């Protein structure tokens, strides 16, 4: 089916709420916001950890443009639409525009995985990187707009400077924080393995708080710290990735449940007309213009641009952001919250449902290949100083007829597999090398010369 899980848990939250069968009366926007922000931190950190920088590097510039110019364009277009439709101030419109300006790639990939398809070319890393880095932008825009609304003496110029400070400090502290985490995790020797995830968790929170206190964007910092950590060589890597994966899922569920509890479904019915109209403008006008505007310099194919426009699924971030006006007491903040909620659900339903079909229609889908368990489960990227390679043994190779033990292999390098006449042989010291053998060799790169000499020996 492919509806984002978001809707499922929001539905459960609604059912448990005062208008559902649960009858829990929850209307504490402040608490909901705190839960939302903490959850968001973990989701962003885990997203950074999972992002393969090697793969994403090539799309970092378009993704960054999409996350800044694209988000800004979307927000401004929605602002104008809201201003015209509701006949209100531009700023009030900009507030709604900012709140719904960021996308949720986790939802996109969850839906694609259900349909067993993957995306061709640069699309996957592009969308992943965009959605990881556009949340800080949306948060910044929302808070800035609220400040402008509350303090009319502030100017757009001062907010622009504020933006530079937020992004600059956020990126810097995130980068340094990530490096510090790598250093600490690799240096400190904990006797108990379970400490590592907890330790990293507390470090991540420190990175966020430190950035927030100094006036940077904590969301950007924690995402970048995750990115640095996930793409460095760290001990206990697997444990950490699994822990934060689980934590991110748990955070999402907690966040959606809370938000589901917070909304009163009857209020959604009141805004359906305007909600549908704005959702339509967002999906068919604002997002496509934002995407085309940001990506035109980067030579994407037309159909790729169409697809990126269509996968502007909105996720939990807008709903969390919609609690900000409630707390700051912005005029008509109830309306904003309900509208945003309605738009997010519409976008998730419409785009979520049609995602697989769209990818296939545009010819951008390819079968999803799960990572296969291979004979040797070992990847070169995770262990920089070792390498696995294959070598063919010819008749006149000096290795023929010798026992492995007599080859004088360096201590930390091994022949890990011999394939002979389609049979796999696990080598032992007394195994004799024969002509036609294929050897799989695990080598410490420091031993390259020594091994080269052994293999290059001819009779």
């Amino acid at each position, binding site marked *: 089916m492919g509806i984002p899980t978001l809707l499922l848990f929001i539905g459960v939250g609604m059912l448990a709420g005062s208008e559902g069968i649960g009858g829990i009366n929850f209307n504490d926007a402040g608490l909901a916001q705190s839960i939302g922000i903490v959850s968001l931190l973990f989701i962003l950190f885990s997203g950074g950890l999972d992002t393969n920088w090697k793969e994403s590097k090539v799309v970092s510039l378009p993704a960054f443009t999409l996350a800044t110019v694209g988000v800004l364009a979307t927000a401004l277009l929605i602002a104008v639409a809201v201003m015209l439709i509701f006949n209100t101030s531009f700023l009030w419109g900009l507030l709604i525009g900012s709140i719904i300006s960021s996308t949720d790639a986790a939802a996109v990939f969850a839906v694609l995985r259900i349909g067993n398809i993957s995306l061709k070319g640069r699309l996957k890393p592009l969308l992943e990187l965009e959605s990881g880095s556009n949340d800080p932008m949306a948060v910044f825009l929302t808070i800035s707009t609220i400040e402008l609304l509350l303090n009319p003496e502030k100017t757009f110029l001062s907010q622009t400077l504020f933006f530079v400070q937020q992004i600059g400090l956020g990126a810097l502290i995130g980068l340094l924080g990530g490096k510090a985490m790598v250093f600490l995790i690799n240096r400190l020797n904990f006797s108990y393995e379970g400490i590592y995830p907890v330790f990293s968790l507390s470090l991540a929170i420190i990175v966020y708080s430190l950035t927030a206190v100094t006036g940077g964007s904590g969301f950007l910092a924690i995402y970048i710290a995750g990115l640095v950590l996930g793409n460095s060589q760290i001990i206990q890597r697997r444990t950490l990735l699994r822990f934060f994966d689980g934590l991110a899922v748990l955070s999402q569920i907690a966040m959606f449940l809370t938000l589901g509890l917070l909304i009163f479904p009857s209020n959604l019915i009141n805004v359906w007309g305007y909600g549908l109209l704005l959702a339509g403008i967002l999906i068919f006008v604002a997002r496509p213009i934002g995407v085309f505007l940001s990506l035109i310099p980067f030579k994407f194919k037309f159909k790729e641009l169409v697809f990126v426009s269509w996968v502007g699924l909105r996720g939990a971030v807008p709903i969390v952001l919609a609690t900000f006006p409630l707390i700051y007491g912005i005029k008509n903040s109830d309306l904003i919250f309900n509208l945003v909620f309605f738009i997010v659900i519409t976008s998730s339903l419409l785009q979520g449902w049609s995602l697989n079909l769209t990818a296939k229609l545009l010819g951008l889908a390819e079968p999803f290949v799960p990572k296969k368990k291979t004979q040797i489960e070992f990847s070169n990227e995770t262990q920089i100083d070792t*390498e696995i390679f*294959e070598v063919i043994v*010819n*008749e*006149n190779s000096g290795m023929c007829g010798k026992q492995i033990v007599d080859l004088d292999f360096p201590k930390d390098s091994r022949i890990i597999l011999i394939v002979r006449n*389609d049979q796999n042989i696990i080598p032992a010291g007394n195994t004799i090398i024969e*002509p*036609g053998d*294929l050897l799989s060799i695990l080598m410490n790169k420091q031993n390259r010369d020594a091994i080269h000499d052994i*293999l290059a020996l001819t009779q």
Partner: protein
Amino acid sequence: MKLSDLLNEKNVIADMSGKDKNEAINELIDLFVDDPKVNDIEKVRKAVFDREKIISTGVGKGFAVPHGKTDAVQEVICAFGRSKEPIDYQALDQRPVHLVFLLVGKENLVSLHIKLLSRISRLMTRDEFRKKLMNANTVKEIIEIFKTEEETYFELL
């Protein structure tokens, strides 16, 4: 699937023009420039030459098996080239190379990649087989020689 199933008239060259190792490898890789199975030909090139840096795949007796693994191919690709003229391949036995078999596998299909390599190894290390390849007159004949030789061998997949 057998190794010979991967060979066809598009990826077999009877008279290569490459005179040295780089030219020969590039000549075979360039056969796949417009192949839909290849996402990024430059990554393929890099994977093959990276492997070559560890130790020459010119394993002696006049044949070479340049190979590599990369995610830039959608499935395994291979090519075979013969050169009547000697190719300076910096082989392990310092002798020139006449037969070049290129194999590029997918990063996450290590098992198949190794099976295919071992099949190449098994075939190419036989003196008589190499002689037959050298004496073949056409591309068709070369493919036929691979097929016949492999007839009694197991399917690899």
